[in-house]
């Protein structure tokens, strides 16, 4: 472990990416579109009444928070780890006395900073136009921070072990696309989890995807009872442990295979 090395990596990645800020702004804009569409759909459907207990303004608050959380937890490096392996660039990283994971984490953090430069003003502007009804309190705000961090870690490491399957298959990207589809359906994107039909809702509560996006949004918008909150928190921790274990195991096996067959 070498914090100064890690920090230097973050800075340099950030410098690289600032060269392409317009490209990253475009990506951030693209990722904003689906939740924005559902924001408009649900707030129109609610009209002057409520749908599933949520009013128009509450839907706006939910989706604006979701746009932020989605950007902050989106692990774009999951898509690039496979390239490192396929193109043999992993060799350069393996020659350094610093685990390649740090390089990936550095890109991840650098990316967040670049995206936030775009997304925070964009959400603020939408908030001015669409008049959300926030019920956030100091309490929910305090709880939101750890759930957001856990959500990011869970989403990152869940994608990381999938991405590392590139050690065995040149087409591991398909699994990442599947993960994105499941997130779209079950993480509170297409509709808040509370509004999903029975079996889908049960799946959402059991599977890890809601804990990557929907759960922290529900925490901040004050939709959850104390019991639901602690259960959700526990689910985040358990799924994160699963993701970490899988990542470590796939990494070890992958490196052994890489070292056996060559990059």
């Amino acid at each position, binding site marked *: 472990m*070498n914090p*100064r*090395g890690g*920090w*230097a*990596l973050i*800075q*340099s*990645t950030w*410098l*690289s990416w600032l*060269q*392409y800020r317009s490209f990253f702004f475009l990506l951030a804009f693209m990722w904003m579109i689906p939740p924005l569409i559902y924001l408009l759909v649900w707030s129109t459907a609610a009209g002057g009444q409520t749908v599933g207990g949520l009013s128009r303004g509450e839907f706006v608050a939910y989706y604006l928070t979701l746009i932020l959380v989605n950007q902050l937890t989106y692990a774009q490096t999951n898509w690039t780890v496979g390239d490192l392996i396929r193109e*043999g*660039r992993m*060799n*350069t990283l*393996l*020659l*350094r*006395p*610093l685990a390649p994971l740090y390089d990936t984490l550095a890109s991840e953090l650098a990316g967040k900073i670049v995206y936030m430069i775009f997304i925070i003003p964009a959400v603020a502007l939408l908030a001015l136009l669409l008049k959300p009804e926030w019920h956030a309190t100091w309490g929910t705000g305090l709880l939101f921070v750890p759930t957001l961090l856990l959500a990011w870690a869970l989403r990152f490491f869940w994608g990381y072990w999938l991405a590392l399957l590139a050690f065995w298959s040149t087409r591991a990207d398909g699994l990442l696309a599947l993960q994105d589809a499941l997130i779209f359906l079950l993480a509170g994107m297409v509709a808040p989890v509370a509004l999903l039909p029975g079996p889908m809702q049960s799946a959402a509560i059991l599977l890890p995807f809601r804990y990557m996006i929907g759960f922290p949004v529900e925490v901040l918008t004050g939709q959850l009872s104390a019991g639901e909150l602690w259960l959700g928190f526990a689910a985040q921790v358990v799924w994160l442990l699963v993701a970490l274990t899988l990542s470590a195991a796939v990494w070890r096996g992958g490196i*052994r295979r890489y*070292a*056996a*067959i*060559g*990059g």
Partner: protein
Amino acid sequence: MTEPSIFVRDLTKTYHVPQRDPGLRASLRSLVRPSHLDVDAVRSVSFTIQPGEMVGFIGPNGAGKTTTLKMLSGLLFPTRGEAHVLGYVPWRRQAGYLRQISMVLGNKSQMLWDIPPLDTFRVLGEIYSVPPADFQRTLDELVALLEMEALLTRPVRNLSLGERMKCELVAGLLHHPRVLFLDEPTLGLDVSVQARLRRFLVEYNRRSGITVLLTSHYMADVAALCPRLLLIHQGALLYDGELNGLARRLAPFKLIRLSLGEGVDGPALPAGVETITREDGSLTLRVGRDAASAITAQLLNTLPVLDLTVEDPPLEAVIDQIYQEGTL
């Protein structure tokens, strides 16, 4: 006797590669029952390199050079055999080992493409925990040796191939490695940049005492840098020794080029001389290495010689002969 920098014994790497015949039917069959082929990339290679040595590692494409370097730098597990570099087993990839070695690849870059080299150098300095004062001194020294002050602040993608190679060398040497693996450092570079890099490597080796194992297809690299040569062919080590020794063993003859005055037609030549070319008054003769001086004297005494040179056969021709025949 000091402990060797690199010790390799019976190092062997066998790749297990999938294979199938062309065509749809074969591709379907390979889905159900994939077949594999064992390919020996490196076969029982042994050698020892002392601290401060610069050793050339040559062989045709696919001979096993890069596979050997990858095992020594810890990127590949061997199938069999042992290796110790600086006392470490490379493929355990301990941080203490990685901090003391460097591998520079002519065809792979570790520079960050979009930002100036100085930024990449700083990151590497931090990754290898080089103290700031030490970092600056090393950087200044390397930059001066390679004459590249002007490149430091331009984005890497705007640099030429030769300029980028200079950056790769700096990046690889900032942490004062004790062993340097160089894989075709002069690939694709023009003659003067090649010469510049060679001068740099000789000078750096002299100053720092670094051990260098270098692969190259340019015999000029090897001739200029490496007193000692390892020649590998089809995974097996064919030769380990001096460059001149290799030439002597393979081509036990010298070439004599003669210019004779006008009107000397079909001169009488001493015994044991083979004529290679003959045009106008110029002759190229091949003679046994041991007889060369006697025959030269005889030629000068008996013929109206205007000019005479004695040469070794071109190195490339010698090497080509081994690559083609696969034996010494």
